[in-house]
């Protein structure tokens, strides 16, 4: 069934997964069993190790000193919701960009109705954000900056180092949405001013769906309320939620098998080398952009410089509806792409493609030059 499929929808979820990911999930379900952190018998301790190993792998990947500062969630959306609803209070002011995904925008808009002030800084038509625009936007009641690490529509990488510095200088909490970059692009917590790093496991980290998390800088956990409360396996004699990491934010039995897979995915990345993965994906993106650059009927969005973008390319073919283009790519050529607004209406308004949206290709380490060339030829036929 999969023989001729060209999968270019890795920004939605990565496919295929490394064999090690699949094997780790199976081994966990078959052999590990046990409820992590609950019972204390050998199988429970082994399940607890599975969860700890995921934290440990994530902390190695992101250069985080203490694995217990990583909270595991079911995805980046849950992680962002914990931060937005657990940290912000009516009267707070928040700054974000016009390139944000709805996973950030919708929780912020909901809090806006409850009394936070929201400034959405406009980006250029290529999705670029001017760090200089931040300082004038800061108010007395500004509490936090929420920023995507890279746009899921144009692939534009945001200047997180510059914005982090501004946040630090002004005493603001800096929350970075790394849904598109974690595992595909270097993130070093020690070297940046990121206070809260939100990520998902099923994209470039090569884990299963239903895995993700947040890194929380020391001290911040005290001023964030959990979204959910319940059993943690710790402090069981108390009917109140524990106040320490990670238990404060991790109630209920987790997706242990999923995290076994996530650890295997991260180990895969570390064994291949993050730089090698980034370089391969950059090469594919360059090849694709060069290949479709001279097709008359195709409009490409985003910046040209592949050093400042992730392997996500949005484009349109003549005046065709993106959904029609995607369907044709699927049916005629076996190419999986994603049309429309990509859950980021503000980003499409910014680049001028709202409401129809674009066709999006997003590449992974498992894509090949041959697949890119096949896709270019397909688009050449459709562009005419």
């Amino acid at each position, binding site marked *: 069934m999969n023989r001729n499929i060209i999968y270019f929808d890795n920004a939605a979820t990565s496919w295929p997964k490394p064999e090690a990911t699949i094997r780790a999930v199976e081994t966990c379900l078959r052999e590990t069993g046990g409820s*992590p952190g609950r019972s204390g018998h050998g199988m429970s301790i082994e399940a607890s190790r599975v969860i700890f190993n995921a934290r440990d792998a994530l902390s190695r990947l992101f250069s985080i000193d203490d694995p*217990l500062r990583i909270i595991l969630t079911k995805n980046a959306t849950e992680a962002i919701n914990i931060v937005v609803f657990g940290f912000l209070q009516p009267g707070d002011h928040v700054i974000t960009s016009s390139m944000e995904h709805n996973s950030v925008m919708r929780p912020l808009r909901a809090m806006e109705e409850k009394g936070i002030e929201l400034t959405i800084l406009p980006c250029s038509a290529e999705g670029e954000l001017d760090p200089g625009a931040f300082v004038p936007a800061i108010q007395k009641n500004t509490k936090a900056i929420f920023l995507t690490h890279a746009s899921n529509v144009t692939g534009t990488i945001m200047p997180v180092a510059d914005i982090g510095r501004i946040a630090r200088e002004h005493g603001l909490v800096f929350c970075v949405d790394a849904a598109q970059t974690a595992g595909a692009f270097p993130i070093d917590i020690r070297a940046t001013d990121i206070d809260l790093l939100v990520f998902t496991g099923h994209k470039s980290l090569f884990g299963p769906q239903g895995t993700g998390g947040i890194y929380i800088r020391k001290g911040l956990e005290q001023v964030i309320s959990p979204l959910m409360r319940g059993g943690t*396996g710790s*402090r069981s004699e108390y009917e109140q939620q524990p106040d320490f990491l990670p*238990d404060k934010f991790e109630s209920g039995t987790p997706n242990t098998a999923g995290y076994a897979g996530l650890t295997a995915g991260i180990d895969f990345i570390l064994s291949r080398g993050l730089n090698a993965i980034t370089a391969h994906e950059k090469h594919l993106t360059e090849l694709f952009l060069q290949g479709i650059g001279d097709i008359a009927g195709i409009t490409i969005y985003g910046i040209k410089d592949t050093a400042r973008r992730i392997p996500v390319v949005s484009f349109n073919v003549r005046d065709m509806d993106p959904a029609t283009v995607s369907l044709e790519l699927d049916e005629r050529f076996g190419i999986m792409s994603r049309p429309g607004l990509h859950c980021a209406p503000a980003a499409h308004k910014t680049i001028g493609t709202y409401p129809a949206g674009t066709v999006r290709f997003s590449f992974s380490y498992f894509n090949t030059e041959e697949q890119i060339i096949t896709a270019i030829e397909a688009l050449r036929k459709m562009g005419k």
Partner: protein
Amino acid sequence: MNVKSQYFVMLFKSVSYALKAEKILKQEELPHKLIPVPKHISSDCGICLRFEPAIQSKIVAALANKVEIEEIRELAN
């Protein structure tokens, strides 16, 4: 107590802390074992770290500033 305990146990806030300690002690090659918390020590449903009294100071030093320890207790025979 006339007879010296064969083992001590180290208690933590939660299982995650115990596992972090386990990782450090494995790297330091200090013998230990994670066991369920005995009922007479705590009613908490967790695990604790068992070790021989002779290496207590080495274990405490290895975990210093890395893992918060709740308490160390003798494990009754």
